[in-house]
């Protein structure tokens, strides 16, 4: 065991750090959605032009083809530099793109991969439905083959950025008679197809980043099917395991920075009863120290997981433990920030800390609830019966 990165990895780190310092966007990321999407796209294009787009993507498809260790280094440097979390491009870069690389036809790859990498298109995800959340395989949005098109009718929900997206990775039921995992198809849905209606949903933060999407006899060419007809579950699982692998590395480093900021806040704001600094309060100091210890543990877990994946070539089941620990740790840290703010925590408009706390509630819901994560750990890591 060792903690040193190789000379090649250190050179890669120095190069990434220098480039990020010189090229980081100076303006803050806008809050208005369309402006935010444009900001993300401009920054992605800048990374693309300098060879930093698609760090994990194979070279043959325009990516950097970085090793797992280099991906880790890039994520550390990216978050350390305070580079923006380009959430509007997340699905394209981390879900749809890698899925097409793994399962797409040559025609699909040629049409979609380069625009995703260049930040020219926004993708959204069409997996969840009103009656298919944690139980995703029960999805009912129906698709019927008619000639060379799929005709889709039904409804999706919790679709982030549907109203600014050009494409959607869509799961539909193509064989209602088959066992439920075997009748699903993964298809590329153009969001401007006739028959699609998008209604934004206002979340508890007051934002409307995600939407309901309705499909009324929407015609999608059969050539947009990724993988085979009725083989969409396997295709989707490849995507989800990717999400549980390396996609959250940068978020973890950001969380570590958040603890640093909270320590600084504790050094300058009054404590719970106003007489001393917050950091001089024993309970707050210990909660901060525990948060620091846990963030260090998160990095250690990630290092162990990446080392293991680098050795075996596949992300291990421990990724589900990292995901669960990360999301609950984030919420503990957000809660500490709420407690430290005192009464201003309930002022409107909300402070940044209150915004983070509210937004953080989604961390144990999206991408598999914490309850589903515990099932996965119990069944796939520990081998407990279903």
């Amino acid at each position, binding site marked *: *065991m060792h903690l*040193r990165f190789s000379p090649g990895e250190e050179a890669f780190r120095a190069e990434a750090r220098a480039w990020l310092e010189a090229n980081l966007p100076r303006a803050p990321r806008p809050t208005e959605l369309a402006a935010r999407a444009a900001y993300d796209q401009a920054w992605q294009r800048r990374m693309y032009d300098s060879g930093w787009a698609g760090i994990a993507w194979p070279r043959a498809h325009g990516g950097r083809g970085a090793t797992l260790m280099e991906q880790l280094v890039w994520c550390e440097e990216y978050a350390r530099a305070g580079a923006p979390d380009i959430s509007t491009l997340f699905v394209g870069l981390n879900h749809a793109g890698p899925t097409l690389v793994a399962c797409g036809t040559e025609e699909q790859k040629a049409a979609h991969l380069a625009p995703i990498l260049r930040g020219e298109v926004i993708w959204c995800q069409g997996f969840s439905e009103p009656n298919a959340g944690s139980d995703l395989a029960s999805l009912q949005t129906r698709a019927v083959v008619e000639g060379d098109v799929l005709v889709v009718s039904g409804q999706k929900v919790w679709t982030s950025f549907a109203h600014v997206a050009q494409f959607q990775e869509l799961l539909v039921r193509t064989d209602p008679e088959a066992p439920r995992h075997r009748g699903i198809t993964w298809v590329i849905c153009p969001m401007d197809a006739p028959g699609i209606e998008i209604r934004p949903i206002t979340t508890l933060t007051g934002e409307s980043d995600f939407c309901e999407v309705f499909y009324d006899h929407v015609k999608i060419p059969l050539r947009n099917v990724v993988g085979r007809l009725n083989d969409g579950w396997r295709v989707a699982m490849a995507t989800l395991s990717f999400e549980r692998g390396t996609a959250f590395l940068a978020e973890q480093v950001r969380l570590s920075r958040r603890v640093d900021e909270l320590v600084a806040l504790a050094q300058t704001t009054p404590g719970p009863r106003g007489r001393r600094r917050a950091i001089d309060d*024993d309970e707050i*100091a210990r909660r*901060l120290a525990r948060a620091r210890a846990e963030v260090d543990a998160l990095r250690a877990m990630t290092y162990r997981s990446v*080392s293991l994946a680098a050795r075996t070539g596949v992300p291990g089941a421990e990724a589900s433990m990292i995901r669960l620990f990360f999301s609950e740790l984030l919420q503990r840290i957000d809660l500490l920030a709420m407690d430290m703010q005192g009464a201003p925590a309930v002022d409107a408009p909300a402070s940044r800390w209150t915004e983070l706390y509210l937004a953080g509630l989604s961390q144990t819901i999206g991408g598999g609830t914490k309850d589903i994560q515990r099932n996965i750990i119990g069944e796939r890591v520990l081998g407990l*019966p279903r």
Partner: protein
Amino acid sequence: MDLTLGPEETAVRDAIRGVLAERLPLARVRAVASAEPGIDEALWREAGGLGWFGLGLPEDAGGAGYGAAEEMLLFVELGRGLTPGQWLGTVLGAHALAGTPALAPLLAGELRVALIDDPSDALGDGARLAGVARGVADAGAAGGFLVLGGGAARYLPATTHGLAVEGRPSIDPTRRLGDVRFSGIAASPLASDTATLRTLATLLAAAEAVGVAERALEDSVEYAKVRQQFGRPIGSFQAVKHRCADMAVRAEVARSLTTFAAVALAEGEETAPRHVAAAKVLATDAALANAADNVQNHGGMGFTWEADAHLYLKRAWLLEHALGTRTAHLDALAVPWRAA
């Protein structure tokens, strides 16, 4: 960077695990602990022959030439087996007594050294030791004592005039405690740096807690797979499954951070003491919570003396009070923030 065990590290771990499983399974641990002197003297000599006490010493000093990472692996295994004995004091003694006549018998498994942790120099910081060190692990069967003060480490053979050991009942049936009385004994400081020794000792106590947390998890999972209620294994119920999942996360957190801290220490990283303190906090959390959950998962059986579940819990509490409680470590981690 690589935090997975390499082939040699795996071999070291497997060898230790194999010896402990064969020579001292838990049923035998109970028998050993309930008879005099409370430790397995034959195993101790065998461990000396296998080089366990000098794992972290250079080869020219009679050691195996490994470092803190391999010593950590040893203590995880000792924790898993609830192995009785003065392992911590003896392994630490190998570092502190380098260059003294006590080293050779210690490495050979003929001298067991108990550790007295005295960070605030309650026994004195000068050339004389006076007072009582309470709750010293396995003091009764020790051949010598390593007194780790705030600024100096000192070694005293158990036969030193003016030193008296009195047994003290322990909550943990597999680890005895004792009070050691010093009546103004002259003791010269050893050359070793106490901060370095204390960091290593804290790491090894954390590693022992990792072992306890892992075994409690494994026992629970094994039981949840076979124990039937309502016509199905209890591990199929989410209430039990999710508790086991939380135990697994705690064990993984503890194992990862303790491994990271050990490797950082072995590589001389400046931040190593901070990581060791954090590891001690989270490994103790994991040991205590997993051991208590393991009692719960075993239901009525878990509440009996006969079942092993309480042994892990009691060892976890002893570890909480060895080398700094969680509160003490958290306060120490916050000191630089308060000074700013």
